[in-house]
């Protein structure tokens, strides 16, 4: 019975992998719930939610080799950052603008992921710029004969910028080891996909001479499978791929947004039923990797990890204003 439903073994995923993927999805979800609570309490002025995207992010990120491959994510990628080595404390240090925020030491808004030692390239707010950095890094890897693969993530809104077009084109021309992952949640803030993307995202791949596929981003195994195939091709020197993972964000765009002006409650409800975490739980139960008890245990453990992260971040120091003039240039402090 279980055999018949087993989709992970063929993908080369072991039980430990699945459990860890599930754990990270839970961590991400609870980080998110916690940051919203902190926002309501007035303790976090700005929140970028991840809920709904955990399957797409954990599935796609898992296909990369940590410590070797390179991540160029965007702000939505909390769960991806956890895969790449962020801890809840790191996340909340960013949220509170603390000195220990690995991304920026409190200089950037929350959710602007980056950490050299975790191979996450520093990100900014301007949309899609990271796609070209990823292309440049992939070229660098190729020139240095390193067999690392580079991944870059973006929303379907990100595909509209010229930077995305340039990255697709350059990756296609030079057969770069680059995976472009679109987390298509159908909205860019309020703008619906139909006003954002002429045609379909994944269908653009062909025009850039690379394979393009789409899949259910709320299914972590599908997300993994499509990405893993692409990463394997890239590592084998067969060039870039575009992957469109269809998903949905459960909350407003950020804490500054109110999605009720542009999304019906019914639609949101509909998608909440396709929750990637619930979907994965069903699978894990189906193949007897977890049962109701382990799920409860793991959920509690994740909540505890998050709570401890919040506490540690809360106690961490704020950056010293005397450091605000540092790191403009390598060689000089400015004022």
């Amino acid at each position: 019975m279980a055999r018949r439903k087993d989709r992970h073994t063929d993908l080369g995923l072991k039980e430990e992998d699945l459990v860890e993927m599930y754990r990270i999805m839970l961590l991400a979800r609870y980080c998110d719930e916690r940051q919203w609570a902190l926002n309501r309490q007035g303790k976090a002025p700005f929140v970028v939610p991840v809920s709904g995207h955990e399957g797409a992010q954990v599935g796609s990120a898992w296909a990369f080799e940590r410590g070797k491959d390179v991540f160029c994510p965007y702000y939505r990628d909390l769960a991806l950052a956890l895969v790449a080595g962020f801890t809840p404390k790191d996340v909340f240090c960013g949220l509170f603008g603390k000195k220990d925020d690995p991304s920026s030491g409190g200089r950037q808004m929350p959710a602007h992921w980056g950490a050299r030692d975790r191979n996450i390239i520093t990100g900014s707010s301007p949309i899609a710029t990271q796609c070209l950095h990823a292309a440049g890094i992939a070229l660098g890897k190729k020139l240095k004969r390193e067999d690392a693969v580079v991944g870059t993530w973006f929303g379907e809104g990100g595909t509209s910028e010229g930077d995305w077009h340039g990255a697709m084109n350059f990756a296609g021309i030079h057969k770069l080891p680059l995976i472009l992952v679109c987390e298509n949640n159908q909205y860019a803030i309020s703008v619906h996909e139909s006003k954002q993307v002429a045609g379909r995202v994944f269908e653009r791949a062909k025009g850039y001479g690379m394979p393009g596929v789409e899949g259910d981003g709320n299914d972590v195994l599908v997300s993994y499978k499509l990405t893993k195939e692409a990463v394997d091709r890239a590592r084998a020197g067969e060039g870039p791929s575009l992957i469109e993972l269809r998903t949905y964000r459960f909350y407003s765009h950020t804490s500054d947004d109110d999605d009720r002006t542009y999304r019906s409650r019914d639609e949101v409800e509909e998608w909440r039923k396709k929750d990637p975490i619930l979907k994965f739980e069903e699978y894990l139960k189906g193949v007897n990797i977890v049962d109701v008890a382990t799920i409860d245990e793991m959920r509690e453990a994740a909540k505890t990890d998050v709570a401890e992260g919040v506490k540690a971040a809360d106690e961490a120091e704020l950056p010293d204003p005397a450091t605000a003039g540092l790191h403009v240039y390598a060689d000089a402090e400015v004022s």
Partner: protein
Amino acid sequence: MAEMTLIQAVHDTLAEEMRRDDRIVVLGEDVAARGGVFRATMGFLEEFGEERVIDTPLDECLIAGVSIGLALEDMRPVAEMQFADFIFPGFNQIVQEAARIRYRSDGDFQVPLVIRAPYGGGVHGALYHSQSVEAFFAHVPGLKVVLPSTPYDAKGMLIQAIEDPDPVIYLEHKKTYRSIKGEVPDERYTVEFGKAAVRREGSDLTCVAYGLMHHYSVEAAERLAKDGIDVEVIDLRSIYPLDMETVLTSVAKTNKVMIVYEDNKFLGVGAEVAAQIAENALFELDAPVVRIGGPHVPAMPYSSALEHWFLPDVDRIEQEMRKLAGY
């Protein structure tokens, strides 16, 4: 006459103008269904329909370029850049195209285009939601750059911008959106570009500012007034055209001048103002020109402690005013 916030003045004026002139089209990211992330176009989609209120793809180059096309078709596009910080993908279209089309065609074509953008810091926006961009555009012949800082000016200058046959960059300080209220006449009026406003008369020193900083400067001046120091505060309102006449008249009276702006100091607007003073009023001055501007740091950091370090505030302006007055 009604009292309203600056953002309300922008919203109501734009709506009024769209009712008057159906060549006006609003376009940008989230301007339709969402009514703008700052609510500048709230209710527009319902009232004017999706042909005149257009949610564009996430591409500022497209927003600028398509707007130019609409303007060439004699429409009156009012484009919104969601944050001034995100105007740069459209820089090429604005600087190379919008600004140069009249000139390069020897007057055969024109681009009556308004680009609105919220700018400025002090709102926990960090590096990419706090920037001031006026200096880049004011350096470009063919563009006009205005920064209304009161609801009255917001209305008068927006109408002026829409009527202007040339491209106008119309910048709204985010922090003034809801914090600054003022009386706005019901009737239609324009505020001419290139006329600074003397916001506070004074004889001891001249303080030139615009946007949020002009409000801070007035506040600082009031503090000095209690000690009998009389500061004249000028709100430039328009950077190009620039009203140096008002500035020079004031300097001739006070013989001391400071310029306050939150943009990075180096090559910011204060540099041009100071330079023109050095060219035209050198012997009027009893003290060196003083500039207060943002430090040479890539925009405001997020953490409150760091943000405060960056942004000139009333205390610092007051301090510098006292120093200059006592020179």
